[in-house]
């Protein structure tokens, strides 16, 4: 039996337009629907498929976040995870803080494999997985487009600009999910009912580090000003010169 850990982050629905808060300190997400970070959902789907291919696995989903993240964990359980852990944390935590918490959980659950999204769609940091690999000293491969388990190894394919790369990692290891790794399944009503009896454990954060960066301001992208129509190329050149765009 291999224990797999799949961290899932609660993020604002990526398909909904959000606005900055009036004071620019962040985004106004108070009344916005939240979802599992799409890349994490792909990671979870990939883990479930490994199990469906016949490998004996126990899948634990973990989320570090507010109490409301229980919603996303329940969804993870409904998709097919066996157990869930919520590290209760109101307010922000940076990538290193997250990596430290996941590292603790990986140790305490005896996980041999962590599959996680390559990045979260809210802050797009793309750092927690690398930091986690460094903290644990495990093998690491990012942006997997296909994975399979064979004995004590995980075989990973990744799509790069120059072609497909194949990587073989010895467990324990950390793999991050790219968009094409697996298409998440629909959650089924029987799955949701089954999830009622699956364990969901709540923990407090082990580390209490300060966030090591400061958000200066969050602003909307300014809307584009109306353009100007010109009649000919010389007119265009003259216009660009007057704007200082060409000399």
């Amino acid at each position: 039996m291999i224990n797999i850990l799949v961290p899932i982050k609660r993020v604002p629905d990526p398909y909904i337009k959000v606005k900055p808060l009036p004071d620019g300190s962040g985004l106004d997400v108070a009344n916005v629907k939240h979802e599992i970070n799409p890349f994490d959902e792909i990671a979870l789907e990939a883990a479930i498929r490994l199990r469906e291919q016949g490998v004996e696995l126990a899948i634990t989903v973990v989320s570090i976040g507010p109490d409301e993240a229980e919603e996303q964990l329940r969804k993870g359980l409904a998709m097919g995870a066996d157990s869930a852990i919520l590290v209760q944390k109101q307010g922000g935590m940076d990538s290193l803080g997250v990596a430290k918490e996941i590292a603790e959980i990986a140790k305490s659950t005896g996980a041999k494999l962590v599959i996680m999204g390559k990045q979260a769609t809210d802050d797009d940091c793309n750092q927690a997985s690398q930091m986690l690999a460094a903290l644990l000293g495990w093998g690491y491969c990012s942006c997997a487009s296909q994975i399979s388990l064979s004995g004590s190894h995980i075989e990973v394919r990744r799509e790069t600009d120059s072609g497909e790369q194949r990587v073989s990692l010895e467990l324990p290891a950390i793999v991050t999910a790219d968009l094409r790794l697996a298409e998440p399944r629909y959650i089924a009503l029987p799955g949701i009912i089954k999830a009622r009896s699956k364990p969901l454990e709540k923990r407090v954060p082990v580390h209490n580090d300060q966030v090591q960066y400061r958000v200066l301001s969050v602003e909307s992208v300014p809307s584009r000003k109306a353009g100007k129509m010109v009649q000919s190329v010389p007119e265009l050149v003259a216009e660009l010169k007057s704007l200082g765009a060409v000399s």
Partner: protein
Amino acid sequence: MSQTQSATAQGCDFLQGNPPKNSFYPEQFLGDESLMIQAAEQFSRQEVLPMSWRLDEHEEGLMKHLVSKAGELGFCGIDTPEAYGGLGLPKNLAARILELLSLNASFSVTIGITSGIGQLGLILFGTEAQKLARLPHLASGEKIAAYALSEPNSGSDALSLTTKAEANGGDYILNGTKMWISNAQWADTFLVMAKVDGDKVTAFLVDRSCPGVSISREEHKMGLKGSSTARLVLENAVVPAENVLHEVGLGHHVAFNALNLGRFKLSSMSLGPARDAIGLASSYSQERKQFGRAISEFGLIQKKFASMATLFFAAESMVYRTGAMIDQAFQRYSGSVEDNMRAAEEYAVECSMIKVFSTEVESMIIDDALQCFGGYGFTEEFPIARHYRDARVSRIYEGTNEINRIFLVDRIRKRILLNRATPPKKDGSFVSELAELCWPLLKDGQIEKGAMADLLILMYGVQSCWSRGNALGSHALELAKSFENYANIRALEAYQLVTGEPIQIPKPHNVDQQNLAELVHEAHGPWHG
């Protein structure tokens, strides 16, 4: 029944003059219930809506494929008992899930019937063997059910049906034509009402495979084009006697009790397309610019969104208030066929009221939504024209809204005679005051009865809105006020019809239409607390 149980809620309680204190409202679907509702919405948006055109063209195999896919996810047996392959979830939650599965009306009627009136007769009246033989296949979506009551010459007057069944050894021989049968093309099993010995209405489970069973060509319909509506032709069809559901001569109990609950389900199904239409109109009107501004900024467009939000809020509040009471009735009376019948009948009046109201609100909302699209709404470029055509039939089937109006008033009268209801009493609202005044003046004229039905529906609506508004505050209260303004004017009209007298209408609540419109745009659809 023990003392404490008899003190619990009963059908027609809404007439008693005390506004409900803690009636259920949809924000009370919590935790994994809301996950189930989201799952249904995701399925609708990703699997069904993109197929709308292909469904309308009856692409070979597509509808059956979607039903079986929905079945794999549990959507064809949500409230089917667990013992027969369903999930055994409460009816109210099942209805909310069905609402979200209903964003496309053709898919809605297909799954609504195979999981609703196609199964309900069996669930309420079937023997163990009958249920075990059929329900698991229906709940899983591998097989599809249909309900066959109407005939070419027997519609509203359903009991005038002429399909005959004659006993012949261990079988019955059925002859007749059932018309307008939804799902006919795909169905494996039909609940057919026929007369034994000339006048004994009897329900039969007729399998598609029985000899003598055939399906005519599809009706050429104005809407719901993706659904199947055809005639079921029975020509010396041989049906084994063990396929009689309930008792010979008691088929009307089967047919009408299935319909009571069917009307409740249809109410929630009608909200699905209305919900989608509100979302579509909201996006469009924020993008469409005229006179240099998004049309959503114009007062008359804002008024439409305020009105759509208000009517949706009211219908939703009434439907799920009723559903919770139906679930309680099934907890109170459950087990025997008599218990099931009692539970299915207890809220028959409420079921008719919400059927009428939701299906009318569905059309009003979609009409307003279409208007936001201007000329584009009149083309097939946007899905709103399809919603417009599809919605029309909701007021016609499962009892026309005329029949439901008459039925509910007659049923209340009957219940009063049996001491199972009181005449309407005022509960603090203007609408209920008018209902109380009108009731004793009522004679047998249909026009007055129809107006009375409207008063009662509006009274139920105002109660449901205030109850939800008081529980949730702020925006919900604003919507409740907005609905009461609407209800008062309609009630005035009904009062004048019954009495022929004028009456002073209360001062309207102050409602900020623009704010209500904003709520819709923020939610990308109807407001939800």
